[in-house]
């Protein structure tokens, strides 16, 4: 039995195979340097910028956060050695073991500990090694972090808490190193949920998250740690939470995504441009709260929506975007909002390309919307 693949009815086998092949190609091309967030190695970095991959951009943001506030801590499993992804390299040496330290492998304890620290007025940047491991800490995030301000009538809050967690497909991660659990947390008022789509975005959004007066769950698309490279502004800057980014302007259809899926949307938009289709691509950046106005303004202009994410389609955050657009833009819509998402299966190992909403499937959905 083949997994359900998102919009439309059962795809026939031929289409399925071609979708898989195209997705594979797109994935490989993004790994080999054709991705849109891939600075040209031949040209020098822009003035005032450093060429960084997403991992180094995160490292830079953490360094600035630790430098600018001496009550900021970075901790998690193996972070003092640099972390499994090397995002925290050099922080221990620079800021000392009092502020950058390893924790035991106990996610619930890590987050609970971070909440206590943040509630006492400090800034806690906790790392959950993989987003897939965040579930032992689910209770702490949902019941303690999200509700501290609310249930204490404003006496306390743990706005100083940021939980970083690498998420998303990586090509070979399998069931427990590939998931995108963002929608579980968008369901929790009191939490902010952020997922950046490029190195410069990651740095600005992470600094904003760390300094946000609300607890933030910050998902880092781990495939981009190394593959995405761009010129990142030097020094301290923040990008606003809750404000979407217009990635590409267009007039025929609005494509909405977040994290590394934005790259897929960009690639689909390029592919479709060759067919004369003009796609507007929006990177949501923040999922809770999300930028309803920007998305609805765009869809009101284009009349069509495709929303896309790696997480399984059912109950994913795409449903929220589609429902809101259906309501707010009903009279402007030319076709039903479509979702192009991960399949409703556990995240597969060898079937990863089959599972993922690749460029071909996004392009298919766009054509389907235009032909409606």
């Amino acid at each position, binding site marked *: 039995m083949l997994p359900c693949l998102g919009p439309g009815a059962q795809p026939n086998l031929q289409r399925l195979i071609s979708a898989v092949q195209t997705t594979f190609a797109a994935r490989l091309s993004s790994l080999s340097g054709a991705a849109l967030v891939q600075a040209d190695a031949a040209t020098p970095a822009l003035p005032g910028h450093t060429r960084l991959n997403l991992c180094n951009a995160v490292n830079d943001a953490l360094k600035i956060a630790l430098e600018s506030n001496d*009550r900021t801590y970075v901790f998690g499993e193996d972070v003092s050695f640099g972390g499994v992804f090397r995002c925290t390299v050099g922080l221990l040496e620079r800021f000392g073991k*009092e502020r950058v*330290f390893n*924790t*035991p492998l*106990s996610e*619930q*304890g*890590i*987050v*609970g*500990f*971070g*909440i*206590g*620290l*943040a*509630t*006492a*007025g*400090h800034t*806690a940047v906790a790392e959950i090694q993989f987003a897939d491991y965040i579930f032992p800490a689910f*209770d*702490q995030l949902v*019941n*303690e972090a999200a509700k501290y*301000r*609310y*249930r*204490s*009538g*404003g*006496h*306390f*809050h743990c*706005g100083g808490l940021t939980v970083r967690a690498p998420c998303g497909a990586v090509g070979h991660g399998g069931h427990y190193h590939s998931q995108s659990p963002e929608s579980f947390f968008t369901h929790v*008022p*009191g939490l*902010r949920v952020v997922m950046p789509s490029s190195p410069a975005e990651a740095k600005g959004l992470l600094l904003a998250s760390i300094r*946000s*007066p*609300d607890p933030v769950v910050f998902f880092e698309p781990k495939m981009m740690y190394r593959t995405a490279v761009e010129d990142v502004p030097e020094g301290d800057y923040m990008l606003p939470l*809750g404000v979407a980014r217009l990635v590409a302007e267009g007039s025929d259809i609005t494509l909405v995504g977040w994290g590394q899926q934005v790259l897929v949307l960009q690639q689909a938009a390029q592919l479709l441009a060759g067919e004369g289709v003009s796609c507007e691509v929006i990177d949501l950046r923040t999922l809770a*709260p999300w930028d*309803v106005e920007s998305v609805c303004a765009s869809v009101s202009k284009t009349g069509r929506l495709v929303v896309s994410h790696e997480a399984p389609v059912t109950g994913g955050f795409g449903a929220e975007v589609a429902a809101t657009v259906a309501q707010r833009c009903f009279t402007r819509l030319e076709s039903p909002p479509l979702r192009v998402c991960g399949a409703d299966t556990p995240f597969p190992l060898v079937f990863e390309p089959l599972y993922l909403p690749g460029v071909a499937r996004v392009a298919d959905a766009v054509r389907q919307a235009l032909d409606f």
Partner: protein
Amino acid sequence: MALQVAITGLKSQSGSQLGLSMARLFASAAASPSIKVEVMPYKVHRIEAPSNVVETNVEELTNFYKLMYKMRRMEIAADMMYKAKFIRGFCHLYDGQEAVLTGIEAAITLKDSIITSYRDHCQHVSRGGSIVSLMAELMGKQEGATKGLGGSMHIYNRKNNFYGGNGIVGAQIPLGAGIALAHKYKGEPHVCITMYGDGAANQGQKYEALNMAGLWNLPAIFVCENNHYGMGTAEWRAAKSPNFYTRGDYIPGIKVDGMDVLAVKNAVAFAKAYALANGPIVMEMDTYRYHGHSMSDPGSTYRTRDEINAMRTERDPIERVKRLLLNNGVDPADLKKIDKEVKKEVDDAVEQAKQGQIPPLHWLWRNMYAEPLGAGMRGVLPAEYHVPAFDPTYKS
């Protein structure tokens, strides 16, 4: 009447009936106001026991008596108000366990932190909150400690480092470790007291928190209030080892008679000094709750009435202090006067709280995030929506 009981109680217990917990008096007749009391010897795990002779005086005992009696009356009033439907929802009462908190507070300062579970009414008062604000909170009035937004399980006091009532069993324990790190990092000579019950003592996250606190030598005191029933399940049915003071394994522990405020005071002072110098310590307070787990639990289906009555007559923490006071020459009339004053204070607070206001509806969104983030509330008329006014003068 109560006095009569106390006196006969004292007489009947003057022999060996109280066993090791018998409070014997020394030197009380001397000119010095200091009173030495022998408390039940502590059981210890990986640590030397502190002395079980505790120094006190009439003034301190009177304060203990007043505070514990206040807690008792408050909880009885809460029980009555619940049954009269002035308080709705969940409500967990502390009566019977008063000596634990009173003893803790006597050994620490308001600069030390306390975080506890949902059984949190008395912490509010011991941390300087008023009874009116407690009662108003229980009734969901905006004059309440949490402005009526938290209710029975969620009472806090930022100024006096009370990190509150937490609704999930055991979830406050890792938070306590984090708060302890904050104290340590700031170089403050303060500890975080993390209170949890014998039910929560079997939660996995307790062990995560103990491990981290142990690794990093945090000034954390983990206080297991063992009232012997995790909701409706006896400790021995739920815990393979109900010796909770030993369950920290590599972390030292001390078991205390939690029905004796002096034993608690002495042990917590010892634990605080230990925690500041060395790191975490587990304390097991052997105590008892007279009420059921919550208001929906009559508290009599899983234990006998005889057991509850025996506790009340033999180990009641307030009666114990009362006996000490009377033995040290305090006039019974003075205690009666305190009783009367406390009772009036609680009764007045209840009446005052009843007059409180229901919080305005737009507070539904308040404190969700720091900013309102586009919240909207449907009005009475169709399609009428209001964006709640976020009063900048609102003080958290």
